[in-house]
Each structure stands twice: as structure tokens, then as C-alpha cells.
């Protein structure tokens, strides 16, 4: 990008960009690998029950295969993340369709795939739990006393009293569907044994999560396991938990066979067996006065957790904390629970519970405004949190951000007032095409919740190189979000070096320290801040002045290595919680996040009443995200997140049977093409956050939160339908319109 009009420096171009454009970048299935076996997984056909027998069919020579069962596991049969509840291989009992039962390896990929289909797993079926909202019967109990993976209650003030006193109370119930990540590179791993070390390479977001899972599984310590992230073709949360499973499987096959083993899922398997977004039901009871002041918010959130815990408690945590929205209200109760069902486990997905919470909240805000016969913008404006006011957890917001300016910028760019009237006029005149304009106002906390960052204790190293440059060593991965470029910018900027003097180490648990997972919009803000501090530490070790930069630094690094006996020069930093953060995990009171990004999104839609197809014809995304470090990358994050959320709201419709996805193909699970989306207009407002790298806050997940409710609000505006459940596919729109027509006729 040439010099920018506002005088900023041009963006550093994506560092690995040309390798990706030219096809030179090597993903796990691209890395030359001789003499490996291909692995495959035999899975449960049944959602729940005891495994009675496993039958190896005819048609292949089974002596050619390596077979791994639960009995071959050297350590504990679990994929550990938060608990040990999920086995690596089912040991006699299955809790969901597609649960891994047995592993095969063979030199031919085609043969092993064919063979996997010839193994019959016979299960004595028990009745599965498939409704996450219904109270479980005693036979259904499979976790704790009540199938509740996690319950969280947030209370502020006296909600019942406030509801009783409120002149108007509006209730609403909202549902969101699941969503498959559809990263374009499917999950894949390669394992081999190198002397005493099991080496795993593959596509992942969190190398140290994989390590943590494999230590108990393989009964080895961190010295005996080496996890190396390879170029990762998209993650979106889908490569947060599941890579530990496939890494475990390849490791078990490699240990048993003594050969390298590769497992690359095809699209069907990837969609069928990996984690997805938690389905949700959100209920609101909202007390308001006639002038539109929020008096009480009573909110219940239920998430479908699926058959194993995965990260459901943490997803729930983010959902409940965001459920009250960016509004000030003195009486709030948010009651959340994540439930076991016998569905394929749900897990991390960009937004991590917040998109579900905001769909309910921001659709409900329009419903309440309509009940008050009030402009939905004005209703939000009145209640939008001001500096000095407190969130539902009692966190005082005091970040100097002008949230009204965020809202007003979105209204201005979308020409909200004039366009709403114009649309209403157009709709009266056009019987076949109806238009609507919808708004959502929201926020997203960056980094781990509460004391999470404190517990992670992230460490970053910046090492000097003999040539006088530096190598940044973190466990953060490049998965398309731009980590490599941003960390280069940060290290180069801090030390006054040019970008070419900075290299970013490939995440490898035998080479880089544990700087935590690449999740939760934390990489730039939290880990990037540590990169800057490690640069400062490197300078101190060189005994340079704090303002030493450029050639002074380079020369000092080269001088360090002039002594051939010199130890490696490594600057180090460790996370320290900013003093302003105080959080009580027991009561869920306090500063849930160090910083929030704030946003207002406007969607315009057009519905063709002949097909019930919806097109988003314009989208305005305005957000305050702290200092923007690289506008090209940041804009790409917002546009991509908005696209993914538009798709969640309108297109992505998982068909379920026995808790398993049936439409596991891109033919019948639809994500948008370039022709299905409008240009997404992005505007950043910037108020630097002092504890983020160069004043930045997290942005990766934010754009997932707003489009769902903005589109539902636009469809309600266009058609007068409830729009309380997404995805709003043509079939759903038709049903909703028919119900509205029937109601009007009666």
C-alpha cells in the first residue's frame, strides 16, 4: 500500500504472503515425507452404548495393517485439556457418533481408507440425550448429577425487585444453530519417532495444548514429545482442541509401527467428526421504563456442549460475561449452563460464546424498542455504557472510548435515518422485493477471561542472531491472521531494525517458550506486548541505553557473538497482569477483561419473496479497537469475520441425526462465494490501550458477534417476522412469513 492519506507509514506487507500466493508455502500434506504410513480412524456408528464386538471384514489382507486400540495406549486414555473425560480411543463405551474406536495404518492411503470402512463396530445402543434444553431423566445422566458441564451465575442488584417494579417487562427467546469452521486446509498431522522423542508436525493453533494432551496419553514428559506447528490453512477455533486428538492418534500409530504416520482428514471426515460452534438458547426478561431506560435484565443462556467437556466451560464464561451487552443496567442476572448431550462435541469457534449471547441480546433490544414504539437506535443510545458506569460483573468501564461516536459513525456511514425511511417507502411500492436495515451494538473482551492470562504466565523470547538481527520465539501460530507480520513490525519497531533483520521462529515446543495459545484475540495485544518487552530485555542484556536503536543494536548483537564461546543472547519477558485488573472467579465479579473492543454494525438486506432468498446488499462495520497496527491485515480480519457471521446467520444449516452432522460436504453445507457477499465497509476508530502492543486491542473475534443480530433485525424490519432463530434460510423465512400471515388472518 502506498503512503496513506493520513500520513501513517505504509503497512508492512504480509511476510509469508508471496510464499502463499506462489504455492511455495508448505502445509502438512505438502511437506515431502518418504516412507510413511497413512493412518485412518474407525469410528462409532452409534451415539451412545456399550461396544459389544469389533469385526474385521473381508476384502483386505489385515496382516498388512498396523492396528491400534485403547489397549495400546502407553499412558492415560484421555485427550486432556480441562479434564480427562474424553478418551483418545473409546474403551468399551461410546458417547457420540463418530467417536474414535480404533486406528489403522497402511502404506497406501486408498487401502487404509477402504479398510476402515470394512471394520464393523457393534454397539448395544442406549437412548441418547439429544435435546440440550430438556431436563435429563435419570437414565440420561452421564456427567455429574445433572449433565451440567458448567453453570455460571452473574448477579448485580436485585433483579426480581427491579422486574416487579418495572412498568414494562418484555420477554424473548432466541436460538442459534451450530456452525462448522470450514478452514480450507483440513486437519492433518504427521508423527515420527526420532530417537527418544515423538515428533508431531501439523496444522494447529496451540502447540502447547497438544503437548499438554500428549504427555499423559503417551506417559512421556515434555522432553520426550516435540510439537511443531506447520503452515496452518485457517483455524477459527477449529484447530484449538481437535489437533490434540489427531496428534494423539498419529503418535500412537507411529509408536506401534515404528514408522512415520500421516493422517490427513478429507473434507467429509473433517466436517463430520471435529468440533463446531455450540448451539444456544438465550432467554431475556427485560424491565424498562416508558422513556426506554433499562431497569432489569434477566438472562438465561443454555449451550449444547455435546458428549465431552472440551472447552465448553470457558465458552460459557465468555457467553455470560457478554450477555448483558455494552449497556448500563443496575439489576442484572445472567444464568448460564453448558449441557452434555450425545452430540459430536462442540468446541471453540471464533467469538467463543459471545456471538450466541449477542444474537439473543441485540435481537431482543429491537424487540423491546418496538414494544416501546421507540427508535431502536435511540433505545440503545440511552443505555449505552458511559465511562464510570459498571458492566454486569461490576467492572467499571473507564477507557476513554467514545462509544456514542462508534454508534454515530455507523449511522452516518450507512445513512441510517434516511435509508430506513427510503426502504420503508420502497417496500410499500414493491410486492416482490423487500428491503430492511438492521443494527447491532456490541463489544468483545480481548485476551483470556479474568485471571486467565495470569494463570497462563506466557513467556516470550527474542534472541539475537550472529548476523545482528533477532529471532522472535513464541508459541503463537500464523494461521492467516497475520501474526508473522505483526510480530515482525513490533520487534523491528522496538529495536529500530528493518523488517528483514527480524525472523519469526516456527512454533516448536523444543525451541520456543510457552506464550500460550493462538486464541481469544490475544496474540497481538497480549503476546505482542511481551514481544516488545522481550526486545527491551535483550537491549538490557546488551547493556545498551533504553533508547538504543538500529545499527547500535545490530552492532552490539554482532559484538556479543564475536566471542565464539558466548552463550546465546536471549531477551525474555513474562506476562504480568496490569494492576487495574481484579477478578473473583468464585463470584464472577470484577474486571472480566483488561480491555474491550467496541462496535456498531449495520446490515442492509434484500429478500426476494419468490425464492425467499436473502442477500446482504450493504454492510458497514465500525469498531474501536485501540491502535491499528497494520490496516490491511486488520481490515482483512474484520471483513473475513463479518463474512463468516453473515454466513452463520443466513446460510450455514447443519442437518443433524443422532447428534451427528449429515451434510458433511461443501455441496450441501453452504458457505458464501464472492458473488454472495457485498463489499464490507470497514471503519476503525482508535483509542490506544496502554497495556496492548503499541496501544492495540484484540480484533480477531469481534466481527463474529454483530452480523447475526444486525441481519435478523434487518429481516424483521423488511418482513415483520420474529427472526428469533438463525440461520434464517429461505425455508425458515417462508415458515415465519406463513405464520405471520396466519396470525394476521385469524
Amino acid at each position, binding site marked *: *500500500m502506498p503512503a496513506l492519506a493520513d500520513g501513517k507509514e505504509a503497512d508492512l*506487507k*504480509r511476510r*509469508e*504472503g*508471496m*510464499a*502463499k*500466493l*506462489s*504455492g*511455495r*508455502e*508448505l*502445509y502438512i*500434506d*505438502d511437506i*515431502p515425507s518418504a516412507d510413511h504410513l497413512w493412518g485412518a480412524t474407525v469410528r462409532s456408528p452409534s451415539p451412545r452404548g456399550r461396544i459389544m464386538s469389533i469385526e474385521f471384514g473381508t476384502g483386505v489382507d489385515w496382516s498388512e495393517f498396523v492396528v491400534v486400540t485403547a489397549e495400546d495406549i502407553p499412558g492415560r486414555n484421555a485427550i486432556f485439556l480441562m479434564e480427562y473425560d474424553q478418551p483418545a480411543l473409546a474403551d468399551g463405551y461410546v458417547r457420540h457418533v463418530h467417536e474414535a474406536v480404533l486406528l489403522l495404518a497402511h502404506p497406501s492411503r486408498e487401502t487404509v481408507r477402504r479398510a476402515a470402512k470394512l471394520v464393523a463396530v457393534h454397539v448395544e445402543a442406549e437412548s441418547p440425550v439429544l435435546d440440550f434444553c430438556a431436563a435429563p431423566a435419570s437414565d440420561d445422566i452421564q456427567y455429574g448429577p445433572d449433565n451440567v458441564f458448567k453453570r455460571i451465575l452473574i448477579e448485580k442488584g436485585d433483579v426480581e425487585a427491579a422486574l416487579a417494579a418495572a412498568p414494562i417487562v418484555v420477554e424473548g427467546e432466541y436460538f442459534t444453530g451450530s456452525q462448522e*469452521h*470450514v*478452514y*480450507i*486446509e*483440513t486437519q492433518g498431522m504427521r508423527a515420527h519417532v526420532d530417537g527418544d522423542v515423538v515428533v508431531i508436525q501439523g496444522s494447529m493453533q496451540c502447540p502447547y495444548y497438544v503437548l499438554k494432551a500428549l504427555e499423559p496419553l503417551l506417559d512421556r514428559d515434555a522432553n520426550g514429545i516435540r510439537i511443531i506447528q506447520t*503452515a*496452518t*490453512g*485457517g*483455524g*477459527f477455533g477449529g484447530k484449538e482442541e481437535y489437533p490434540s486428538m489427531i496428534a494423539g492418534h498419529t503418535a500412537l500409530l507411529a509408536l506401534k509401527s515404528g514408522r512415520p504416520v500421516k493422517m490427513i482428514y*478429507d*473434507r467429509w471426515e473433517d466436517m463430520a467428526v471435529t468440533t463446531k460452534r455450540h448451539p444456544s438458547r438465550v432467554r431475556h426478561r427485560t424491565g424498562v421504563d416508558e422513556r426506554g431506560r433499562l431497569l432489569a435484565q434477566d438472562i438465561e443462556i443454555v449451550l449444547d456442549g455435546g458428549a465431552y467437556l472440551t472447552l465448553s466451560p470457558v465458552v460459557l464464561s465468555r457467553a455470560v460475561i457478554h450477555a448483558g451487552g455494552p449497556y448500563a443496567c443496575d439489576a442484572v442476572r445472567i444464568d448460564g449452563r453448558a449441557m452434555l448431550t450425545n452430540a459430536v462435541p462442540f468446541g471453540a469457534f471464533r467469538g467463543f460464546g459471545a456471538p450466541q449471547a449477542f444474537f439473543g441480546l441485540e435481537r431482543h433490544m429491537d424487540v423491546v424498542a418496538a414494544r416501546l414504539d421507540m427508535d431502536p437506535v435511540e433505545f440503545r443510545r440511552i443505555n449505552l455504557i458511559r465511562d464510570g458506569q459498571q458492566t454486569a460483573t461490576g467492572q467499571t468501564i473507564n477507557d476513554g472510548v467514545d462509544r456514542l461516536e462508534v454508534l454515530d459513525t455507523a449511522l452516518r456511514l450507512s445513512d441510517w435515518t434516511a435509508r430506513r425511511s427510503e426502504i420503508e417507502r420502497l417496500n410499500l411500492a414493491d410486492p416482490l422485493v423487500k428491503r430492511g436495515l438492521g443494527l447491532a451494538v456490541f463489544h468483545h473482551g480481548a485476551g483470556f477471561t479474568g485471571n486467565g492470562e495470569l494463570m497462563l504466565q506466557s513467556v516470550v523470547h527474542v534472541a539475537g542472531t550472529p548476523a545482528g538481527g533477532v529471532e522472535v520465539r513464541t508459541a503463537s501460530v500464523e*494461521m*492467516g*491472521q*497475520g501474526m508473522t507480520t505483526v510480530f515482525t513490525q513490533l520487534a523491528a519497531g522496538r529495536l529500530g531494525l528493518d523488517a528483514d533483520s527480524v525472523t519469526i521462529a516456527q512454533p516448536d515446543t523444543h525451541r520456543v517458550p510457552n506464550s500460550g495459545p493462538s486464541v481469544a484475540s490475544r496474540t497481538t495485544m497480549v503476546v505482542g506486548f511481551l514481544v516488545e518487552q522481550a526486545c527491551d530485555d535483550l537491549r538490557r542484556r546488551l547493556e545498551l541505553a533504553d533508547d538504543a536503536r538500529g545499527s547500535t543494536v545490530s552492532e552490539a548483537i554482532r559484538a556479543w557473538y564475536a566471542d565464539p564461546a558466548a552463550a546465546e543472547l536471549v531477551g525474555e519477558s513474562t506476562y504480568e497482569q496490569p494492576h487495574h485488573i481484579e477478578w473473583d472467579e468464585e463470584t464472577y465479579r470484577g474486571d472480566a477483561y483488561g480491555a474491550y473492543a467496541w462496535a456498531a454494525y449495520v446490515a442492509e438486506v434484500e429478500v426476494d419473496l419468490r425464492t425467499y432468498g436473502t442477500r446482504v446488499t450493504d454492510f458497514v462495520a465500525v469498531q474501536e479497537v485501540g491502535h491499528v497496527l497494520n490496516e*490491511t*491485515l486488520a*481490515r*482483512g480480519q474484520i*471483513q*473475513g*469475520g*463479518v*463474512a*463468516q457471521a453473515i454466513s452463520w446467520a443466513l446460510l450455514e444449516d447443519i442437518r443433524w441425526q443422532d447428534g451427528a452432522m449429515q451434510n458433511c*460436504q*461443501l*455441496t450441501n453445507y453452504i*458457505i458464501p*462465494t*464472492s*458473488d*454472495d*457477499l457485498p*463489499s*464490507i465497509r470497514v471503519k476503525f476508530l482508535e483509542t490506544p490501550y496502554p497495556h496492548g502492543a503499541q496501544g492495540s486491542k484484540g480484533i480477531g473475534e469481534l466481527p463474529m458477534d454483530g452480523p447475526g443480530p444486525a441481519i435478523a433485525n434487518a429481516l424483521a424490519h423488511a418482513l415483520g417476522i420474529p427472526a428469533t432463530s438463525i440461520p434464517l434460510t429461505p425455508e425458515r423465512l417462508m415458515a415465519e412469513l406463513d405464520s405471520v400471515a396466519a396470525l394476521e388472518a385469524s
Partner: protein
Amino acid sequence: MIQPVNGLVSGVLPVAGDLPVTGDTITFGWRLNGEETQIEVDPAERLLDTLRYRLGLTGTKEGCAEGECGSCTVLMDGLPVNSCLVLSFQAAGRRIDTVESLDEAALAPFLEGGATQCGACTPGVVITANWLLANRDLLDTHHIRELMAGNLCRCTGYDGIVDSIEAALEADDPAVVGDAS
């Protein structure tokens, strides 16, 4: 004249009987990335697998294996096809151009414009974009967003891709590269 859109190749594809069959394999000649070569393949081998696993041309990616995502797009006689849906012997006597044939200088607008994020769809995207740039009369009847609809991207929301193509179209030097014209 407007060429067929969506990768439809006109003409008659050769059948196995027309080709030298030796034992279990088929041998034929083609022009791959500008070079005339002979190749021996299994009859049921997909072009995608020949490129990736037999020839090590791993720039071409498998995304769905059913012609929906376009990650495996290559040019066959100058037209984009999903190489997961082409049997290798069907390429006998034809020109095949993969991402490896592209000149990096011609890719600069895509780097500038933010066309790539995770990179998994990217080789297919730049192949289709290259076809578009080499056949600009397509734009008389089709929008860029229509012409690029055969390549799914989950990262960019497509703005980065469309902006990059627009920038390349505006550049003086048409980005016609490889054997695509």
C-alpha cells in the same frame, strides 16, 4: 468472443482406449507449466494427485474433492478446471498450468491488496484470477465476483481478492503469465 465460464472445457476429451496402456498404467504426453513431457499414471488417478503426489507440485491444494471449493484449480488449455474432478489421462495432449507456473511479479497486486490470509485457497484463487486477467472481455458480461465464485475463501470475505484483481486490471501491464494466454 466470450469463452465458457465455470471451467467448462469444450471439445472431446480423450478416452482411455486412445492412449497407450501398459499393464495397469497409461502413458501420455502433455505440456505442463510450459514444458512438453511424458507422464505415466494410473487410469483412475486424479489430476490433483498426479500433480501433488507424483510430481511434487504441492501448490495445488485439495479442499473438498468434489469440485465445490476450487482450491485445486488449474488451467487446462487456458481454462480453469477443478483438478480433483479431472482424471489425469484426460489431460493427454493438453496444456496444464498450475500455480507454480505463475510469475511472482504478476502476483504483487495480490500481496498489496490482502488477497491471501491463511493461503489454503490462494493458489486456486490466483489461477482463476490469472485466467480472468488474461481474458478481460469476460468482464463485458460478467462481474469479478461472478467470475471468482468458483473459489471459496473462508478468511478474506473476498474484498481483498476483488480489490487485488481490480488493482491488477488497472495496472498498465496486463498480468498475463505462464502459458495461460
